[in-house]
């Protein structure tokens, strides 16, 4: 399953918005098969921040571990955010 993050907006900044996005995504997430990968696609996102990322990406990393895969992006706000989340969580994201 692929999450197109741009569907949550192009400016993904606040904790509140990240939390709401994850809650809204739960019904779609329920359809994920037990051995299916969950891919995060950052295409179309312009600004990404640790606050939003911590509320959305971190819980998915904790829940799905290696099955949660980040697709490549050259957006520096995504790259730096992901590195910081890895430091705070002491856990690495799987990258495609």
């Amino acid at each position, binding site marked *: 399953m692929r999450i197109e993050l741009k569907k949550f907006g*192009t400016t993904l*900044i*606040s904790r509140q918005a990240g939390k709401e996005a994850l809650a809204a995504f739960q019904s779609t997430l329920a359809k994920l098969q037990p051995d299916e990968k969950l891919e995060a696609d950052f295409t179309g996102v*312009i600004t990404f*921040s*640790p*606050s939003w990322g911590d509320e959305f990406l971190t819980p998915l990393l904790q829940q799905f571990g290696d099955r949660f895969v980040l697709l490549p992006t050259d*957006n520096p*706000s995504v790259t730096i955010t992901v590195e910081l989340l890895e*430091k705070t969580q002491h856990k690495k994201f799987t990258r495609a």
Partner: protein
Amino acid sequence: MEEKLLNIRQASEILGVSVDTLRRWDKSGKLLAIRKEGGVHRYYHQKDLEIFASDLVKLAHDWTAEGSEIPSTFYCADSSIFQARLSTLQAVLVKAGIADQLLPLVVAVAGEIGNNSFDHNLGNWPDTPGIFFGYDVTKRQVVLADRGLGILVTLRRVRPELKNHVDALRVAFTEIVSGRAPEERGNGLKFVRQVVAENPISLFFRTGDAELRLEKDNPELFITRSATDIRGCFALINF
């Protein structure tokens, strides 16, 4: 052709402050009005209002230091207003042709600093809730400020041993710690530090009597004490 003068009500609408505030600003010399010969009514040149509103640093600083009224254009009473204006900043930077590798970082840094103000002061604002948020793409600057508790007070919730604003500012920008205990959160300022150190962005940040300067290619934190204290936090981002 002589420029048409605006009356005080028109000026108050343009600046988004009350007529009484304009009268006070005239008396104190902060924004002087014009009086027609022998007249008592106050008038303003449009250009003077534009110049006044373009001094973001002074407007934000005076707000944090003195609690003076600020033009409504720059006031975000809650985080939803801030998010909306941040999206506008993003659109303005896209239109201005700011490089793809820089634009997301400027918006994210502004976003994290602004969010920090809301996240750490929610329900605890000492007087005025919300933040000052202004930007000038021509000057390549973004200014944020709040009249919140300041970093020392919020960090002391989890680090009661912190003694002064300088120590608090250093911890906020270097250690993974949160002022919203018991949640393991509050890493926005570490993100800001890394982004600024690696990109053509500079940051001046002030809380209480502590001032921090950060710039590209210099991961060192320059924190000094200032002569005066401000309420909450003040941040100037140059890019």
